[in-house]
Each structure stands twice: as C-alpha cells, then as structure tokens.
C-alpha cells in the first residue's frame, strides 16, 4: 500500500471542543475568553517588580544586603510560575456527554421519573447518593447532559462543568477547580508575601535614603517608589485577606462555591463529608495530593474525513486496536494519555500585586 504524504493541516481536538475557552500554543494553553484583567494582573506584577529591581534593590543591595534582591527574585519567579500555571491549565473541565451516553442517561431518568406529559415542566433531575453516611444530591447539567459529580459545578462564563469548582477568577483569566486550585492558592500566598516584601523594603529604602538626602529629595529621585507603595498598599488588603480566606477553606476542605452557597453550614444541612476532620490532613490533601491529568485530550488528533493518508503523528498509540463504531460520531482514534498543561510556560517579566476578586458562578 503506497502512502501519499499529503501536507494537510492536522485538526486537533481542542479546535472542536464546546464551551467558551480560548486555546493557545496548539492546545497546550487553555484559558477563559476574557483575558483583559489577566493582562492587567501581569502588567501590575511585572511593572511593580521591574521598578523595585531597577531602583530600590540597587540601593538596598549595596547598603544592606545582596540577599534582598535574591529573595525578591525567588518570590517573584515563584508567583509568576504559579500564576501562569493557574491561568494556563485545565481547571478540571468535565467533557460533555457524547450522544449515546446522553441518550442512555435520558432513558434512565425517564425510567425513574416516568414520562412527563407534554407541556408540563419536567421535575428537576436529581440523584441522591450516600457519601460517608451523608446524603449528597447530584444535579443533572442540561448543557453538558451529565449528572455532575459531587462538588462539580457548571461555570456559566466558560460554559463548562468543572470538577471541584471553586470560582471563576477574572484576575487569572480562568476557572479555579480541582486541577489548578493548589497553583491558585500558592499564587495568592506567594503574591501576598511578595507584596509585603516589596512594601516593607520600599519603606526601608525611603527611610534609609531620607536620612541621607531628605524625604522629598528621595521621592523626587525615585518617583516609582510612590507608585509601588500605593499599589502594594491596596493589594495587601485584598490579597492577604483572600489568602487568609482560602487558608480557612483549605483547612476545612471546602470550596468557595460551597462556602458561598452554605452547603455545609446551618442546622439542617449535612456536614462536609469530604473533610478528614483534621486540618493537617485536609491541607495535605488539597495542596499535595495526587494531581489527576486533564481528560480533555486537547492535543489529540481528530481523524481526517477524506480518504487520503493521515500525516504520521507520534501522538497516536495503538489507535488501530480501537474499532470505530460506525453508528456514532465519536473519535476513538487517539489513545494517548491526556496531556497535562506541561506546556512551555513563557515567563514574561512583569509583576502586579493584584487583588484577585472572586466571581462565584451560580450553577445552572
């Protein structure tokens, strides 16, 4: 059999994914559609840190210790890495049900609830499960046509169901869910520390220099200091507060979504069945627990419709062993493991102490 090498563009699965996400770097990067506030975050972090390294650090490294810019650089790099990791990774999106599966679930629902007469509103689709001796309700998602796993929620901004949905954060330009919550937490933690660090050393710089040339002269010489102090001051209140709030959530193994809806509080509500009852254990599980890979398979290749040969790809493994069902439109070709966002992360050099505000999304 002769193989024609046809130079055709390969269609990857991310190009056909439903939902309102944007993808970059050929599917390696996944974000929400609105990225404006994320760029602002980057600009503020980079801008403030650039000013700090350019002006204050030079003076302080000489006058006090060269360790000052070193620590600042480490904090800056860590917070940038975690920010990019939070923004660019799949938060734990649950792919929508394929038609066969959706039909199967519909049948099950009808069998349980009975047929609904025309014109009448169907009853809400809820399944009850018992988890650790507590009854937990699973809701049916009409968009994704699945019963949402416990703790999952549908983000209306991204139009996806996300596992362990925390909130949609416009400051990082992505949802925060099971797969990127730890990066988000480490980002706000390191950003808090960085903000406090920059703020403190700005004050030290102004104090030291004022002793030599006076307060007004100092400000005239490095006007950036005023800007940095202002930004840090306002950021401190929001980011540090947010870090405290999320530390509380992590200790109790709760999500922002659950906290806001009051899922586990109140007299007649069930207790949180996911908490281990031990703060250390909860923290360890949320921050250091096993990290499931993305199930979206963004970089998998969709099969070509034409009869021509497919350009050889290293990403398909044993695809010939999986027969394609003639009746369905599924694509069973790529059997590769879903890639994590192990994308080459660009590290732009900005630093904005940003107050990430949360927009919890009401689930459908």
């Amino acid at each position: 059999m002769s193989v024609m090498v046809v130079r055709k563009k390969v269609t990857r699965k991310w190009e056909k994914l439903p939902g309102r996400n944007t993808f970059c770097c050929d599917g390696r990067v996944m974000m929400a559609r609105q990225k404006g506030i994320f760029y602002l975050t980057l600009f503020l972090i980079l801008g403030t840190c650039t000013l700090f390294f350019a002006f204050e650090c030079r003076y302080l490294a000489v006058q006090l210790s060269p360790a000052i810019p070193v620590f600042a650089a480490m904090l800056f790099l860590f917070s940038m890495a975690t920010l990019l990791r939070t923004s660019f990774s799949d938060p734990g999106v649950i792919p929508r049900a394929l038609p066969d599966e959706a039909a199967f679930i519909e049948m099950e629902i009808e069998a349980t609830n009975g047929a609904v007469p025309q014109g009448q509103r169907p009853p809400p689709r809820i399944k009850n499960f018992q988890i650790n001796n507590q009854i937990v309700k699973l809701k049916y998602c009409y968009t994704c046509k699945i019963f949402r796993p416990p703790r999952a929620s549908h983000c209306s901004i991204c139009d996806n169901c996300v596992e362990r949905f925390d909130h949609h954060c416009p400051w990082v330009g992505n949802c925060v869910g099971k797969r990127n919550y730890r990066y988000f937490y480490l980002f706000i933690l390191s950003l808090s520390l960085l903000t406090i660090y920059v703020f403190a050393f700005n004050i030290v710089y102004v104090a030291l220099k004022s002793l030599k040339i006076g307060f007004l002269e100092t400000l005239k010489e490095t006007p950036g200091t005023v800007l940095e102090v202002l930004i840090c001051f306002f950021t401190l209140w929001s980011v540090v507060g947010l870090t405290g709030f999320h530390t509380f959530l992590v200790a109790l193994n709760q999500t922002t979504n659950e906290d806001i809806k009051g899922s586990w509080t109140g007299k007649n509500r069930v207790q949180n069945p996911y908490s281990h009852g031990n703060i250390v254990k909860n923290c360890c599980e949320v921050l250091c627990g096993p990290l499931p890979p993305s199930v979206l398979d963004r970089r998998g290749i969709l099969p070509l419709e034409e009869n021509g040969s497919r350009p050889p790809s290293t990403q398909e493994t044993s695809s010939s062993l999986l027969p394609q069902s003639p009746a369905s439109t599924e694509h069973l070709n790529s059997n590769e493991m879903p890639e994590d966002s192990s994308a080459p992360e660009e590290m732009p050099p900005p630093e904005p102490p940003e107050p990430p505000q949360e927009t919890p999304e009401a689930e459908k």
Partner: protein
Amino acid sequence: MATEVHNLQELRRSASLATKVFIQRDYSDGTICQFQTKFPPELDSRIERQLFEETVKTLNGFYAEAEKIGGSSYLEGCLACATAYFIFLCTETHYEKVLKKISRYIQEQNEKVFAPRGLLLTDPVERGMRVIEIAIYEDRCSSGSSSSGSSSGSGSSSAGGGGAGAR
C-alpha cells in the same frame, strides 16, 4: 499479538454495533474515581457476571492506587512545589503512570476477554472519567470472530435506540 489485533479488526468489519452500555461512577466513597460493579442486564447473555465484576474491581483498584493519599504522593507534591512545578515538564506524575497501566490493562482485557464475546470496553479516560462504555456488537456473518451467541436478544434494538425494554 498480530492475530489479536486482527481479531479486533475482524470484529469491526464483521459485526455491527447493537447497543452500548454505560457503567456509571460510584460516589459512595466520595469523589474518588470508582465505578459501579452492578452487572448490567444487557450483558446477561454476553459475558459471565464474575468476569465483568473482576474487570471493574481491578479498574477500581487501579484508580484507587492512582488517587491514594499517602507518603509518596505528598513527597511528589512537595517536590513539585519546591521546583515551582517545572518538574512536571520533564516527568510524569504518578497518576499518569497509573493511567497508562490502566490503558494497557483495558487493551489486554479487550483482546482476551471482551472481543471474543463481541464486546468492547472503552477506556474511561476517553469519556472524561464519567463512565465505562461497553459496546455490544452483533455478528453479521457466521465466520466472524468467535462470539458466544451470534444474535443475542438485544439484536432487535438498533444502535442509538438503546435497550429500554431490555432494562
């Protein structure tokens, strides 16, 4: 191996898809990935209950191993954090390694157990870890791959119609 691949391809050519069964997740232990071991009635005439349950239990065991919270997973998490997660650019996580094992296991089970019975298991990872999809094929020709029953009771339902009555 070549003959087993040949068998699966033969299955595709000679059989038509009768219906699909979806094994749902079992959330009774929390959010960890486990599948229900309840035997679906559609598979009654196609495979022994014990074989099916063994497959699902093995898969559940694999997933439990992947999601196990313990010393090694903490170490991996802490090491990754210390390297600002750059280490994941070079290595695979423990979870990914177990998923590869699961994929190999499912392939093996398909070749040895399910395909000879006209069934095909789909890796749950391809369905978003929501379901284990089992496709039930019906032999079109008698010289097809060895299937225990050539035309089963579910032959009356066409693909997509589902087996409402069969349930």
